[in-house]
């Protein structure tokens, strides 16, 4: 039923299809604009289907090793190579599969939304090219098993997203935001290249599995670890390197912002992948774990307190994205801090990691939903300033309902998905250190407070005379938001199913370095 071609080559197709579609976009757009919209939608649907198929196969059959250019796709160590894996290898294990599921869901909803939100703008020939290129680069970042390949996709995503942020030039604000984002992203890329130089110079390997098997934790490796944390935590938007996040997220078109959230999480995935699989127990787990925890707590607290006095609705949501990234760092940092202690790892370490990883997918879904609703409001009203909005609940009922679902989810209110992952984080981090769990709960309350402010000032209140003409958002946008809202409710009502089928394999894959090595080095 499924062609043999897909069974063999789906990981490569998931990168190749959006890449090819991206570069054919301007050509098709030259003839018909509607044809371009159909082409983009078809490419997004195909990419999401391929990503979901890859993820499904990985979850049922185990890690998928795909070698580019070998005689058979899983021949990672050819007989004449002397026991060294050669060629670029994509290793899709359960954690990568989870990120592929996120890209599939959010990527398709966002492109569906963008067809009507950005459909009337000019300069669209470059816009959809960059959009599909960004999706391709995120898929590449999460599937690859090669350090330099990760760097290349990392830079592609930085370039594509910076150009998309600066897309609507108008008064130049968006270009300023794109510039600031891109300068910070370039510095992070230079750090990553430095890490590659250090690790390649020592071990003569670029494949993550090969490096992991040869890793002795020398002084140079410690320097490389610090540079990795610095670069990837910056791109993920954690305090105190978060300054680019509010600028870039606020001024990008809303569909781009939802995808930027996924790109930041792909950098976070890269951080976890390199710490857990490349270094694993060779590093000082307690110190590095506490480093991640401190970054997480700072992100949570500074993010939410900076969000409360904001006037710009998307800037406020961007600060909340920083804050929620702190939860993920806290959860996984707790798991890392007890990595050497098997008793504590089984008692609460695994649960903390599962909570942090579950929060990644939950955050992608509800944050995407919130940014899309903000985009719908800005599309109809024409301003991002909350001081000038009011009483929109009279006219935009569906948008209001979707916003409520997203806001309750991000605040961690049952029965939505945010509550499930936050509960896992609270309970396991409490066993590690009660103060951290209390800070996390206080931040959750402040999140709810700030979203009550947003909800009240945008939707509640009397119907203002200048917004008499405002109608509900267009249908394509409602469908895009509806997919994400349905998933928020679904993940909230069936959390144990989601954790058992998606999250626990991912956490186990992250913790189990020997399984990762065996898939590549153990032969075909």
């Amino acid at each position, binding site marked *: 039923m499924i062609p043999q071609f897909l069974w063999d080559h789906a990981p490569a197709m998931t990168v190749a299809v959006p890449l090819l579609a991206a570069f054919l976009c301007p050509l098709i757009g030259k003839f018909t604009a509607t044809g371009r919209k159909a082409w983009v939608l078809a490419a997004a649907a195909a990419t999401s289907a391929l990503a979901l198929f890859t993820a499904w196969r990985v979850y049922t059959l185990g890690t998928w090793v795909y070698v580019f250019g070998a005689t058979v796709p899983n021949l990672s160590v050819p007989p004449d190579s002397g026991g060294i894996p050669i060629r670029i290898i994509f290793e899709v294990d359960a954690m990568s599969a989870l990120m592929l599921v996120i890209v599939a869901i959010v990527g398709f909803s966002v492109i569906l939304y963008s067809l009507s939100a950005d459909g009337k703008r000019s300069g669209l020939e470059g816009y959809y090219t960059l959009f599909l290129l960004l999706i391709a680069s995120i898929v590449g970042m999460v599937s690859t098993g090669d350090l330099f390949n990760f760097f290349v996709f990392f830079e592609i995503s930085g370039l594509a997203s910076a150009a998309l942020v600066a897309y609507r030039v108008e008064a130049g604000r968006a270009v300023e935001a794109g*510039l*600031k984002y891109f*300068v*910070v992203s370039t510095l992070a890329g230079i750090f990553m290249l430095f890490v590659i130089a250090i690790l390649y110079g020592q071990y003569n390997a670029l494949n993550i599995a090969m490096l992991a098997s040869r890793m002795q934790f020398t*002084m140079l490796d*410690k*320097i490389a*670890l*610090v*540079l990795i*944390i*610095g670069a990837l*935590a*910056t791109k993920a938007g954690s305090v*105190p*390197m978060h*300054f*680019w996040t509010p*600028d870039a997220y606020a001024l990008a078109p809303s569909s781009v912002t939802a995808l930027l959230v996924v790109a930041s999480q792909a950098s976070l995935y890269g951080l976890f992948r390199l710490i857990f699989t490349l270094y694993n127990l060779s590093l*000082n787990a307690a*110190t*590095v774990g506490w*480093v991640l925890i401190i970054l997480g707590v700072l992100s949570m607290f*500074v993010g939410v*307190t*900076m969000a*409360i006095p904001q*006037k710009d609705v998307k800037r406020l949501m961007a600060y909340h994205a920083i804050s929620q990234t702190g939860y993920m760092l806290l959860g996984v940092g707790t798991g890392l801090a007890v990595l050497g202690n098997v008793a504590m790892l089984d*008692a609460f370490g695994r649960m903390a990691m599962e*909570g942090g990883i579950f929060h990644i997918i939950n955050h992608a879904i509800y944050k995407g939903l919130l940014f899309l609703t903000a985009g719908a409001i800005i599309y109809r009203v024409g301003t991002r300033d*909350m*001081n*000038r*909005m*009011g*009483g929109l609940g009279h006219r935009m009922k569906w948008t209001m309902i979707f916003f409520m679902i997203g806001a309750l989810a991000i605040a961690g209110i*049952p*029965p939505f998905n945010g*509550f*499930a992952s936050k*509960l*896992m984080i609270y*309970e*396991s981090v*409490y*066993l590690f250190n009660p103060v951290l769990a209390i800070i996390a709960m206080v931040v959750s309350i402040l999140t709810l*407070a*700030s979203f009550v*402010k947003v909800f*009240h*000032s945008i939707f509640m*209140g*009397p*119907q*203002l*005379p200048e917004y008499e003409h405002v109608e509900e958002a267009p249908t394509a946008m409602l469908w895009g938001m509806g997919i994400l809202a349905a998933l928020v409710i679904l993940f909230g009502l*069936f*959390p*144990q199913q989601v*954790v058992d089928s998606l999250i626990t394999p991912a956490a186990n894959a992250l913790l189990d370095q020997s399984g990762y090595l065996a898939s590549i080095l153990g032969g075909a």
Partner: protein
Amino acid sequence: MALTLSTGSGFWNPVVWLIAIAVVVVVVYLVWRRGEAGYTAGSAQVKPFISGNAEPAKKVAQMPASNLYWGFTEALSGYYSRVVPAHTGIVTDYLLWVLWVTAALFLLVVIT
């Protein structure tokens, strides 16, 4: 299928919550049914009642977003007066922060 999410030290079952919400909705409905059934549209019955005073203009009655949490920001003014100015808009300062954090991580990870 088991709907209970079990964390290591507790559990959460969404079905229990849904039953609780259903009970609350039923109670709310019963209370709502005891209200007045009919009203005349356009009369004083549909206008907001502010103890007999005139309703202020829509613009005056709206509380803008910046003023909603004045008490909170005022109480934490010691914190906000330091953190908010740190968010200058200057891009070289952003790079400086990245380098400071990397340097601090050097000291933490490499020296210990």
